[in-house]
């Protein structure tokens, strides 16, 4: 009987780890469905970006209020997780607050810091709920359905988890001295405010409440970890690799299509080197035609809508929304992953660039202004996806807008996007001479 809670704990841990590993495995697989692109260069610059933009939250601070609220949740998460380490050791070893005797006074200092952060997280989550629902911030208000629910659920779950910690600490303090199992820790400032709620309880009821809160918190955290993998909240992990692997070339530079270079060179009679194996598709028709970095981006997106709020096309009522580009990419690559798992044809269902996900109307509306890229706090690049879609339209489908086809024709025959005779190109100099007369 003595070991029953330890066995139960190990079981819970094993089940959670199993599901988590499954989820991580399938997301990894989905990301690897993307085309290869080399991001092993410039390690120094990449680390710097990760440190500044992910760890340092640099781009978040373009908007001060959400940045501060987020910083509290972020630091709270990182620090409070140290306490989860103690939870896990206690759970396995059947001990209680194993670090308390080891750390002595430092333990109570640490727990007081954790409690302060728990309260800060609580306050921030409530403020975020407020911003989402009461005085809605426009970029958050435009979400509906699952993404909206997801955004609220995360915040509510965090509020509940923080309450569980505080309840646990409050009842624990009341039990110290009444039950030998509960080691002396010194007092905890914030949870002391909750103590009057439980003061009248019997020792048994207190133990029950304390244990319930303990189990609730740890199971909550483990369940949340699995939930996160289905949610935009995956950014809490993905933000780090995402900033590391993000593009570091100038924003205006479009990547070169080497398969096209080979062909153009041989058309021009230049030495083209070895022709590439087989060129699958030019540009992208579906999510698995994109690069793994594009797909990783889609799993890292927080759906915050800062990109869409800056998009000139979206601001003027066009259908294009860079946030939707990211969300559609994630939904479609997940669908492709599931097709494969179910033994179906990978590309069954609607392709990413089709009316059901990203339509031609959306692709064509982009001015390639890079405002979305600049705005994204975790260096996601929606523009890169848009441009690959356009390449497919232009080169495989010839379905570009008519005026663009005319422009292509002009460039080809008149060497300018407008239909002027190339011999007129230098006429401006005559005008200069005329002016002088």
């Amino acid at each position, binding site marked *: 009987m003595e070991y029953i809670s330890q066995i139960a704990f190990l079981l819970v841990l094993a089940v959670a780890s199993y599901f988590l590993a499954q989820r991580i495995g399938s997301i990894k697989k989905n990301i690897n469905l993307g085309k290869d692109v080399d991001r092993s260069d410039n390690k120094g610059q990449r680390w710097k970006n990760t440190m500044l933009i992910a760890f340092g939250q640099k781009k978040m601070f373009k908007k001060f209020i959400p940045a501060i609220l987020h910083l509290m949740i972020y630091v709270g998460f990182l620090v409070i997780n140290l306490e989860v380490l103690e939870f896990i050791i206690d759970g396995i070893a059947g001990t209680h607050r194993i670090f308390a005797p080891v750390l002595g006074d430092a333990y109570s200092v640490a727990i007081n810091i954790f409690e302060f952060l728990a309260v800060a997280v609580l306050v921030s989550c409530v403020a975020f709920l407020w911003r989402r629902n009461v005085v809605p911030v426009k970029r958050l208000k435009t979400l509906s359905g699952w993404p909206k629910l997801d955004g609220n659920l995360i915040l509510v779950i965090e509020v509940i988890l923080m309450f569980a910690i505080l309840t646990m600490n409050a009842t624990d303090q009341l039990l110290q001295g009444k039950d030998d199992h509960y080691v002396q820790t010194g007092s905890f400032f914030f949870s002391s405010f909750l103590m009057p709620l439980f003061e009248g309880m019997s020792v048994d009821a207190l133990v029950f409440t304390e244990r319930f809160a303990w189990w609730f918190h740890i199971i909550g955290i483990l369940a949340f970890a699995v939930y996160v993998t289905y949610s935009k909240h995956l950014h809490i992990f993905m933000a780090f690799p995402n900033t590391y692997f993000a593009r570091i*070339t*100038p*924003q*205006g*530079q*479009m990547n*070169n*299509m080497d398969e*096209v*270079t080979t*062909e*153009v060179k041989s058309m*021009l009679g*230049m030495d083209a080197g070895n022709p590439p194996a087989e060129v699958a598709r030019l*540009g992208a028709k579906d999510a698995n035609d994109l690069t793994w970095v594009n797909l990783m981006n889609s799993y890292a997106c927080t759906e915050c809508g800062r990109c869409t709020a800056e998009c*000139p*096309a979206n*601001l*003027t*009522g*066009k*259908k*294009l929304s860079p946030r939707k580009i990211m969300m559609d990419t994630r939904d479609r690559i997940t669908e492709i992953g599931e097709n494969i798992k179910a033994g179906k044809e990978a590309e069954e269902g609607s392709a990413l660039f089709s009316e059901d996900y990203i339509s031609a*109307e959306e692709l*064509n*509306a982009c*001015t*390639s*202004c*890079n*405002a979305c*890229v*600049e705005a994204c706090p975790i260096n996601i690049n929606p523009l890169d996806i848009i*441009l690959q879609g*356009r*390449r497919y339209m*232009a*080169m495989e489908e010839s379905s570009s*807008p008519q*005026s*663009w086809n*005319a*422009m*292509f024709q002009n*460039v*080809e025959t008149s*060497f*300018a*996007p*407008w239909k*002027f005779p190339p011999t007129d*190109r*230098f*006429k*401006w100099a005559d*005008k*200069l*001479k005329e*002016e*002088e007369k």
Partner: protein
Amino acid sequence: MSDSTYKVPTMQEMSAKGEAPEVLFWVGCAGSFDDRYKAVTIAFTKILNKVGINFAVLGPEESCTGDPARRAGNEFLFQMQAMSNIQVLDGYNIKKIVTACPHCFNTIKNEYPELGGNYDVVHHSQFLQGLINEGKVTLKDGGEFKGRKITFHDSCYLGRANGVYEAPRDVIKALDAELVEMKRCKTKGLCCGAGGAQMFKDAEKGNKEINIERTEEALDTGAEVIAAGCPFCMTMMTDGVKNKEREHNVKVFDLAELIAKNEGL
């Protein structure tokens, strides 16, 4: 021709004489064909002459960089253009290029290297900034723009795309003008609506044209002059000002035009 004050030597003429220019002025399609932007080409040419820069143009040998084709998805056409331009540039052994078009600037600077074309490329705002810093362009005090309100519209391909924010502003400050910023400027600058090959087609369905939104922002600053550094921005902002019926008291000028006017060129 020899008595003309302003000379526009072509590379062909120069190399026939066995000479090499210090810098090639890449005029671009808009600078060559667009009536409004030809004036900018001329203004910049006058400045180059006045300062005595040893420059040349490609003249009829110039060709579209391929930028609009690439942004619209036609990578083949882009690369064909790029390769043949690189052949011409390398044929003349060009090392340094200045252009008044941010799209040409971005393409030649960032995208030609992968196809074998490596040049030192500057935008004319950076070139003008250099001339001002070196004291080659000294603006007489009490110039035409002294104390007047000027706002600068960041072109996406100069600003966000390449991080050039200060050069154009330094040029405006050198005029002794009052530089006023729009609500969205620098990294947050709002596109004029023409980038990404939008210049060459109608906008998709929406509730407003992007250039109107941007022009309203520019007008909100109370500036008399909207300064630009890009042919497409120039068109979009000029159309915007016309649409708002403000062309009588708000002018859209390129940076080179501002300097040339101030110099009485």
